[in-house]
């Protein structure tokens, strides 16, 4: 009898769990696991967003600083000319809402062929231009200089990517990168998104606005970065 009871006790102790208990446990574990996985994914996404946001913001600010310095240092090609900007190029190398072209020696290392001159040879056509090709709203903004000195922008020139996530031309944004402000000798102010041989004489300032998408992988997150530049060598005498 004692032996029988012992066997029954052992069998009862080793009976395990019922199917219902197992299912409930699995459901609970499933719920908890899915919550943990969701939280983990969200944390990863947040970290990625923070990285992308920081990188995009820093890239945008760097690009804005570079553009500001270049435009501030724009110079006329000859001392007789008061116009440091160029109008004879074809798109995208023109002065409009998304592009700006000018003569500049900024950050131009002196070469042997340029030494011993009055420095004029260092003034090269320089362009800040937006590559609007492609269907994605994020566009690439480039800096380019006519370093092979053939008077046009071509494959032999130095080109540098300033920012790759510019969304100024996105349908939901549609903001000019360059806005030109003019003041004539009567003190009247006007603004435009283009420069002409007539208006450049009264150019006072260039407002630059970059709209950066800092969340490329997910829902767009747009940040406006802007600055105002006064070219040192424009013809305005006000």
């Amino acid at each position: 009898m004692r032996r029988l009871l012992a066997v029954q006790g052992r069998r009862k102790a080793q009976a395990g769990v019922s199917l219902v208990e197992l299912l409930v446990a699995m459901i609970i574990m499933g719920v908890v696991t899915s919550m943990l996985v969701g939280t983990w994914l969200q944390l990863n996404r947040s970290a990625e967003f923070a990285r992308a946001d920081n990188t995009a913001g820093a890239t945008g600010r760097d690009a804005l600083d570079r553009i500001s310095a270049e435009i501030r240092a724009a110079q006329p090609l000859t001392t007789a000319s008061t116009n440091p900007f160029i109008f004879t190029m074809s798109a995208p190398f023109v002065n409009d809402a998304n592009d700006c072209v000018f003569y500049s020696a900024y950050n131009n290392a002196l070469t042997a062929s340029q030494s011993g001159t009055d420095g004029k040879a260092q003034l090269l056509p320089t362009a800040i231009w937006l590559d609007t090709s492609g269907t994605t709203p994020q566009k690439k903004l480039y800096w380019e200089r006519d370093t092979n000195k053939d008077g046009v922008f071509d494959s032999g020139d130095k080109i540098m990517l300033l920012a790759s996530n510019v969304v100024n031309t996105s349908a939901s944004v549609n903001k000019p990168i360059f806005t030109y402000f003019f003041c004539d000798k009567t003190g009247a102010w006007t603004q435009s998104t283009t420069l002409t041989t007539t208006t450049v004489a009264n150019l006072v300032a260039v407002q630059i606005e970059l709209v950066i998408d800092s969340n490329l992988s997910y829902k767009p997150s747009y940040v406006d970065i802007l600055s105002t530049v006064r070219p040192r060598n424009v013809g305005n005498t006000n």
Partner: protein
Amino acid sequence: MRHVWGKRGAATARHGARGFSMVELLVTVLLAGIIFLAMVPLFVGVLKRTSTDTRRVVATNVAQARVEAIRLLASTLGPTPTSITEPVGYAAITTANLNTPGFASGLFATSFPAAHGGPPYKVTYTVTPDASATAASKVVTVTVSRPGIDSFNTTLTTTIKNPTAVVATSTSGPTDPNSPHQLTVSFKNWQEVKNVKVVYVNTSPTPNVTTTATPLTQQPSSGATTCVWTNLPGGLGYLYTVTCTPQSPSSWGSPLVSESFHLISDGFVKFDTNPGGS
């Protein structure tokens, strides 16, 4: 007795290995659910705060750009100066002007539509002292906010200096260009000239006023080979010329006339009465 103890021990062991009942499990799940639900507002708050931070960054960028523009263009914002004493655009930096949407063709727009959508940011300006053309400096405060959406205000302050502020009573440092100055006229050979005259034109009034400085003419001599005029009006508003007549007819023409010049400090003019010679 051992048997009873044995039975009780087995019962206790069986009770201890029984696990949780369904009711206990459900209550636990319910409690866990309540705790997680209580944490939801925390997550929502964090997400909302992240979004607010983005808008705050944009607001700061806008405020910085406005401050930059004001500092950069402070001397350009007003009407064209007509004299050196006019404070150029400085006087135009007023609370009313900066808060006018069309001022400077909208360069300081009081509304900024952000690319991320939603209501535009509101930009307001305060200038202290306001509407003063003579104060040595002005403090400009730029505040960017989104009324009704976000509770934050981003405020930046800058100081604009009066570009034409001149310390007229200073006894050291550069001379005030508008104060009276002395003009000395000398000659390569004082014996070859006579009737030296200084004429200046006041270009401020219309028509301009031409005056011959006193003494009206001077004659260099062996005792004083230079001619000196004192107390002449200075500044860019007066245009000077010096003339003299050769003692004898020459190929230089008569009278000899200097280039026009402004007198912004004590000046010195020398006539070469024998160009290329000794």
